[in-house]
């Protein structure tokens, strides 16, 4: 590659980079501002995670019972505790809706 060709290719590369990087500022886009999470959204999110964690724990507990890792008595105690936890979270989620 000759020096002139290399300089031309380098200039084209720089131009391409400028166009690609600047494109979002010239292209039409309806929403330009990001909305931020409110404190209430964050609380709702934490509760949704807690709800899913409780459901997941219940599924794991069922699996542990079926594979013999917990006794029936242990299973029932833990299941009731997890259900109570899930119910508490769901009540709070409903209150926020």
């Amino acid at each position: 590659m000759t020096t002139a060709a290399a300089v031309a290719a380098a200039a084209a590369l720089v131009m391409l980079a400028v166009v690609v990087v600047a494109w979002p500022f010239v292209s039409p886009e309806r929403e330009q501002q990001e909305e931020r999470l409110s404190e209430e959204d964050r609380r709702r999110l934490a509760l949704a995670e807690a709800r899913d964690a409780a459901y997941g724990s219940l599924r794991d507990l069922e699996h542990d019972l079926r594979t013999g890792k917990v006794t029936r008595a242990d299973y029932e105690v833990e299941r009731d505790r997890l259900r109570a936890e899930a119910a508490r979270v769901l009540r709070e989620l409903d209150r926020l809706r």
Partner: protein
Amino acid sequence: MTTLGRVALYLVFALTAYAAVAGVLAGRRGDRRLMRSSRNAFWTALAATLVAVVAVEYALVTHDFSLAVVAEHTSRRLPTGYTLSSLWASEAGSLLLWLAVLTGASALALHQNRRRNRELMPWVAAVLGGIATFFAGLAAFVSSPFAHVAGGVPADGAGLDPSLQNPYMVAHPPMLYLGYVTLSIPFAFAMAALVTGRTDARWLVSVRRWTLVSWAALGTGMLLGAHWAYVEIGWGGYWAWDPVENAALMPWLAATAFLHSVIVQEKKGMLKVWNMVLVSAAFSLAVFGDFLTRSGVVQSVHSFVQSPVGPYLLAFVAATLALSTALIIWRLPLLRADHRLESVISREATFLFNNLLLLALAFAVLWGVVFPILSEAVRGVRSTVSAPYYDFFLVMFGLPLLALTGIGPLIAWRRASPDSLVRTFRWPVVSAISGAAFLWLLGLGSSTAGLTALSLCIFVTVTVGLEFARGTAARRALGGGSIPRALVDLVGRNRRRYGGYVVHLAIVILVVGVTASSAYSTVREAHLGVGQSMQINGYTLRNAGVFQRQGPNYTYEFVRLAVTRGGSAHGTLEPGQRVYDTGQIGNEVDIRSSLPSGTDLYSTLQGVDRNGSGGVSVKVLVNPAVGLVWLAGAVFLLGALITLWPDPREARQLARRYGELLARSGA
């Protein structure tokens, strides 16, 4: 092309710096255009980096010896494959490869999350931009692959180091770099979560797969490096606790700890601070490993000669640690655990112990690596930390870790009762004790650590087997169908869990291979005249003469050893020495592997009598079960792939969790 490559590198520096600044502004102002612009800057930085890579490769294949990376690491008769891979034989070229992986992984991570984690992503871009700017700055201004040779342009290059002219060296460094560099992604997400206060579990979900990629790549890279050392270096082993080997092991251990503790955070909302610490530690250790490889402060077969980038890398590690520590301390109130540890006999407790042991092992290795450096800096005397130090800690921390590999999956979450413990552990414990007695009767009791390791391997294998068997039975009880169908269904619905168990099996296979091949190896050295024989473990090796063969860029002088066992022929071994056109000399081992035992008959040529008699000095080893070490690599990859495979059910659950609640805000 050199001019184009140089301009491309300057452009990468400018683009990544812009991406970092645009990321910060997008995060502060909530401006989506800035975020898109930052993301586009990463894609163009990747394109410009690839242009620089092509420019270096072009210089390599056209033998442009005006460039130092070409003149110092290739020659005209070097085969094309090695000419292309010599990009990462030089310090400057490997830095360019690092940059290519970093910009590629960053662009991909930002693209994957373009509609998710919108509050986090500007800060992820800012952190990744900062990291990429640093490495682009090194490549453009400190250690450029486009630097010219001092003095006149040579007619031919110095040639590639003979030990690097091996197919494993084509794959080993890129794989390790993929592992090191992709640890930047979890680090960037963690820092973004701390900056924004979005310390909920969403960032963990996004980075878990990237951590798995890093961890699988580091693990595979280490095994490729171990195999390279085994077939190339010629000492008969595959792991020497070399500082640069340790450099890859340390972040791998930290990533392993994170992959376990992340489960506890997702399921129980615990270990939030710990996970931040692990992600920061894994990334810092990866950059520290890069420092060890490039700075020249350690002596290693893997390291580059001293380069000017060392102090910069060390300063970068210090800055990373300072930044992450400050952010973690600032956000401590948000990182409080949702639950407390209720019992030490619970699955979360086993995860915690597993984490402590992994980190303890990582820091024992770190101390072994840095002690000689500190000793030289303080006392002016370079001390050596050798294998017994590392072996001691490997046994101290590794054996309990192996035991936990079996214990963890069988213990229930929150609290396990004595009744359930007896029920779940009776068969694994009885199997391990019976196995230990059997192995002791076989005469394997000479090494207490070895016998303990093998017994624990039986324990873990039985626990994993039981997990698969009980899980399959439970699946059949629920959905019916054949056993293979139920097994596939079980694994498909619980990919992380059962993929993890496959990795546990890989660890067992690795431990058996390492224990057997290191504790029960046999070595013999002998001088053999033509026609003379030596014996080792039932094999007879006869010197059938010294020969020469011409290679593409070398002459191979070797001894032909005719191998027999029990009177029947077992082929020949041809260990020797390559004398390259450049004058470099490389020893070549020859190995005969027997399946299915995985035992290797391993030979090296120590010297040839120069009186023309055909007499040679040879070293021969019988390494039992060494094939298991490589088999472990294949099983490890299988387990990692199962774990990595996308789970549409999990994706749906996440979409529901985050989508329904955050749709209004678009976050």
